């Protein structure tokens, strides 16, 4: 059992020993290990991008009583790979009216924070690429850059649909960032640490979803909005804005946006798991497996939401954020503080 639990850690130690045997100093070996970790995580992000889309389509099919992709490979498992190969061969179009620099830079500005957030995700005990002591502050800070990328895409495309989508995305994402940040505060008050590994370790006896149920609910709502997923997908809003911010994007540039979207979906689910669902803690199975099971559960929940709720109007979205979620998230801070002094 111990061997299976520590399998990945032992492999990491093996690689580190291998690097050290070539005469590297301890610090250099650590840095090289981060490079290895980053490369592996990029591979996982690519995988999550491809199979996130596959899962989305398959689950959509399931909810609508149809098959979903089932032609390419067994159970359609290679469908996303085929789509990816097709996208590489697509012509790279940039509309003549678009601002060349802003239009080109936008996908990178969206993708980069999505990848960078992965650096601090605690996949298992001692399996973190960069174990920052200000982990969650880093996540919140880095992921807020996404808003800028979406606005750049909307403005740079020189398309009216894109502009509307971009403007909406800014309004929506800044409105929901505050409840998102505040909803995590209760957990930080209990654990007294910003480090994600510490937060998981503090949930050994009871998951924080029990004392922090209000925080969890606010977090899930705000996270759905930050991910621009249904019912908050006004940035895209295919039935009113064609594809919103993404209208002028095609081929690989468009695929970069979607890789970012699924990387973010996984990262947000992983943060929810870490903060409220006990992270990698769990009986019998190895910890990293528990982490993936819980994260996939959250992803399934977000996809379920997509086929359950209709889209909000923009004024409803903002009202919901400012008039309900923000007071609730602040109330959660008060309740946590008062509860600490009354009960503990």
């Amino acid at each position, binding site marked *: 059992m111990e061997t299976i639990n520590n399998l990945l850690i032992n492999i990491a130690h093996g690689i580190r020993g291998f690097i050290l045997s070539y005469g590297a100093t301890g610090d250099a070996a650590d840095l090289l290990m981060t490079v290895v970790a980053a490369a592996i995580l990029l591979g996982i992000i690519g995988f999550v991008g491809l199979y996130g889309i596959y899962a989305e389509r398959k689950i959509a099919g399931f909810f609508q009583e149809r098959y979903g992709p089932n032609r390419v490979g067994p159970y359609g498992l290679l469908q996303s790979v085929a789509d990816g190969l097709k996208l590489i061969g697509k012509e790279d179009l940039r509309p003549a009216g678009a601002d060349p620099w802003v239009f080109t830079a936008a996908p990178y500005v969206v993708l980069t924070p999505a*990848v960078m957030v992965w650096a601090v995700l605690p996949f298992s005990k001692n399996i973190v690429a960069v174990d920052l002591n200000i982990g969650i502050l880093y996540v919140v800070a880095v992921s807020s850059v996404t808003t800028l990328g979406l606005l750049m895409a909307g403005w740079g495309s*020189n398309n009216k649909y894109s502009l509307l989508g971009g403007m909406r995305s800014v309004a929506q994402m*800044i409105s929901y960032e505050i409840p998102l940040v505040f909803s995590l505060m209760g957990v930080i008050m209990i654990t007294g640490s910003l480090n994600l590994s510490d937060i998981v370790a503090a949930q050994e006896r009871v998951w924080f979803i029990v004392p922090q149920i209000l925080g969890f609910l606010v977090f899930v709502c705000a996270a759905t909005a930050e991910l621009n997923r249904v019912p908050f997908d006004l940035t895209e809003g295919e039935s009113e804005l064609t594809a919103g911010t993404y209208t002028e994007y095609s081929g690989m540039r468009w695929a970069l946006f979607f890789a970012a979207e699924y990387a973010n979906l996984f990262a947000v689910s992983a943060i929810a798991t870490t903060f409220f669902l006990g992270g990698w803690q769990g009986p019998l199975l190895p910890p990293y497996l528990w982490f993936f099971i819980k994260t996939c559960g959250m992803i399934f929940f977000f996809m379920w939401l997509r086929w359950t709720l209709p889209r909000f109007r923009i004024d409803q979205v903002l009202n919901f954020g400012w008039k309900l979620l923000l007071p609730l998230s602040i109330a959660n801070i008060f309740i946590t503080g008062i509860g600490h002094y009354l009960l503990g």
Partner: protein
Amino acid sequence: MAQFAGVGIFLLFALLFGLVAMLMVRILSPKKPTPEKLLTYECGLDTVGPTWVRFRTSYFIYALLFVAFDVESVFLYPWAVEFTSLGLVAFIEMVIFIGLLLLALWYAWKEGVLEWI
């Protein structure tokens, strides 16, 4: 400091991820632009008028509120970390601090800032 070097490595890899993908496209994909292909997309119609006009941002006061609360969250994080050790007085002080901002939110609400016009 070494940790932030790790973050830097992730930044580099994230940029490379996109750049390598676009490089592959540049090598492998055809490039035959025609004037029609490069038109702005608008469901088959030609787009009318400029897009980059002065745009009515109905939410700019939201943005001001956002700045106020975002700065507040920066103050809240260090306090939340030390919450248990700082004791009751610090908690009450923080309640007053958040209360002041809630007062601002209530005022903005009353004045109709939170209505989408």
